């Protein structure tokens, strides 16, 4: 990228000089290069952004957009390296959970000054909120997703649940029948990122919460113990796939695509994968099973502007362009995400049953709270759940230990 930058800047410099020399009275063209760090979602991500860049460059001659794509695994590391080296981009996609640190470090440019009420109104409120801290908007929701239960229509119908299970009791009952028929019932994730979230589905729907209103951890409650015991008993009864702690989300999804596991909680993009990789699989989408209440997890990724950007006006123009109807619809439908702007939501691409199923869950969706120490909490809970799944610790003890760690981290 730097090589292109040098060449581009040289070209730009020459052009500017020519313009300047040609006529002092003629208004000099403002020719900026905006660098954007984007995260990889699929094969479509890079072509999409390059297309958007090309379209923008055409509409704004002289301006250039440079896209650098990074895998999520190493995005944080790359950003850290870039920022430490003072060579970060102008715009970047980040996990919204990092936004708080961004703002604390004074790296993020508040966007309210650029947004007029009409712009703000483009967004679906629930998705804009996570990008706002202390009333100021720092991140725009570029990607949003929620989670629902995918179930294998064939095996679930045989088990007596043609519309999918509604409650955790249904899940257990269905899994028993599926186990008798030789398959695995409920796919349980026990490894890598979002192991904690996978347990929160049970926690939230049984009335529990991760962080309480007082800002301290709240998952070591009776609801939490009930939720953990539920999963552990399912593992012990063979209602899940064996070797849970060796299964990341991808691994469980693979089992589902192979038809070996009949239920898995996942995001909208799984539907696209199934259509491509296992087209004969009949699947259905149901809300996350209920305990005492309905809940699901929703998450956004945000695009932020760096405060140390030298081309903020042009960067904003590009942001504005990305969040108009055309680009948004293309991005969201390519990647299988949920619409974050109202115009998108009304578009025909999102009128299919699968997307509608997810959108309907939004009212009961919970976002990860933007608090310091969220990732430490996530790790503590993941570690605790792994101990529970392995039978190394009792739910009550494991959760208590985790809550001590979480409180220390959240308190800062």
């Amino acid at each position, binding site marked *: 990228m*730097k090589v292109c930058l040098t060449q581009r800047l040289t070209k730009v410099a020459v052009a500017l000089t020519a313009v300047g020399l040609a006529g002092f009275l003629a208004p000099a063209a403002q020719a900026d290069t905006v660098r954007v760090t984007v995260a*990889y979602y699929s094969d479509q991500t890079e072509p999409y952004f390059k297309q958007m860049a090309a379209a923008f460059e055409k509409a704004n001659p002289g301006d250039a957009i440079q896209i650098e794509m990074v*895998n999520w695994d190493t995005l944080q590391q790359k950003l850290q390296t870039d920022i430490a080296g003072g060579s970060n981009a102008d715009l970047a996609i980040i996990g919204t959970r990092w936004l708080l640190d961004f703002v604390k470090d004074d790296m993020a440019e508040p966007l309210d000054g650029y947004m007029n009420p009409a712009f703000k109104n483009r967004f679906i409120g629930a998705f804009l909120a996570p990008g706002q801290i202390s009333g100021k908007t720092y991140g725009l929701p570029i990607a949003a997703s929620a989670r629902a239960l995918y179930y294998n229509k064939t095996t679930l119908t045989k088990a007596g649940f043609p519309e999918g299970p509604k409650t955790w009791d249904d899940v257990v009952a269905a899994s028993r029948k599926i186990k008798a028929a030789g398959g695995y019932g409920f796919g349980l994730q026990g490894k890598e990122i979002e192991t904690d979230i996978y347990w929160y589905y049970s926690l939230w729907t049984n009335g529990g919460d991760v962080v309480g209103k007082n800002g301290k951890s709240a998952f070591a409650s009776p609801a939490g113990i009930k939720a953990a015991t539920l999963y552990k008993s399912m593992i012990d009864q063979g209602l899940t796939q064996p070797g849970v702690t060796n299964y990341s989300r991808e691994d469980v999804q693979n089992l589902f695509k192979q038809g070996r596991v009949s239920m898995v909680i996942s995001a909208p993009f799984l539907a696209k994968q199934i259509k491509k990789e296992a087209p004969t699989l009949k699947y259905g989408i149901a809300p996350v099973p209920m305990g005492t209440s309905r809940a699901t997890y929703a998450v956004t990724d945000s695009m932020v502007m760096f405060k140390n950007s030298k081309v903020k006006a042009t960067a904003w123009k590009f942001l504005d362009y990305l969040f108009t109807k055309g680009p948004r619809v293309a991005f969201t439908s390519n990647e299988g995400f949920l619409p974050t702007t109202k115009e998108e939501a009304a578009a025909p691409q999102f009128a299919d049953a699968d997307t509608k199923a997810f959108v309907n869950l939004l009212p009961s969706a919970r976002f990860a709270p933007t608090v310091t120490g969220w990732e430490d909490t996530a790790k503590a809970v993941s570690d605790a759940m792994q101990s529970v799944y392995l039978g190394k610790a009792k739910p009550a003890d494991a959760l208590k230990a985790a809550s001590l760690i979480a409180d220390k981290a959240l308190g800062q």
Partner: protein
Amino acid sequence: MSIDRRKLRRSLVCWAALAPLVVIVLFPFAVMFFTAVKPADEVFVYPARWLPSTFRWANFSDMWVATRFGVALENSLIVSLGSMLLAIAVSVPAAYALARFPFRGKGAYRQFLLVTQMLSPILLVIGLFRMAAMIHWHGSNMVDKHISVIVAYAAFNVAFAVWMLSSYFATIPRDLEESAWLEGCGRARAIVKVFLPLAVPAMVVTAIFTFINGWNEFAVVYTLIRSDANKTLTVQITDLVAGRYTVEWHQVMAATLLATLPVSVLFAWLQRYLVKGLALGAVK
């Protein structure tokens, strides 16, 4: 005739002894190979099978295009060869000094070299990036340039190269050079005519070590190289796997296999230099 039979018996014994290791070594390569030639939808078939239904050789050409293999290959070659030459160039004199001269700083120098190996690359690379970003070069900075990676690799390899070369140089008897010197050669000429030819096997082995280290290295390239046009094979291939929602395993395996070919060819060539008594056989 009897010599052949002895050698044959020895061969059988040796291969039998090596068999477990050979099987374990070849196992992952077999996995890579069979996955690389499977059609995409057979990779995760259940029950899992070793053999594909058809050998889809087209995976290799698909992969070549999709992963910009040719460009990455070229970058890997440039970076590995460059660091190899630089490392050898600075290490040979140092190794000679360690092997031939007793001098006061010897121990400290060795310790210093060892310490350069002890820092985990994970955090080291952040500092390297900062340094590269600060150094001005041709109008921009040293980030995303081959030369930065070459210099970094050479520096990381110096410790091993110096140690390996000096150990080997120490086994070359001094009297050879000294008798040449006595016969009227200048010191420098004695080194070039007598010492260097004997040192060649060690230099070749060390050079190949540094080449391989450069070929397979990941952290430094990942941090310093940003544009696709400059990425090496290790980064390009790992990018196909790390943190992706869907991984095209057949392509990944195909790419990994191809990436091992240049090094394997080098091995085949290198091992000739590891024959017993090669160095001193020459003396006789």
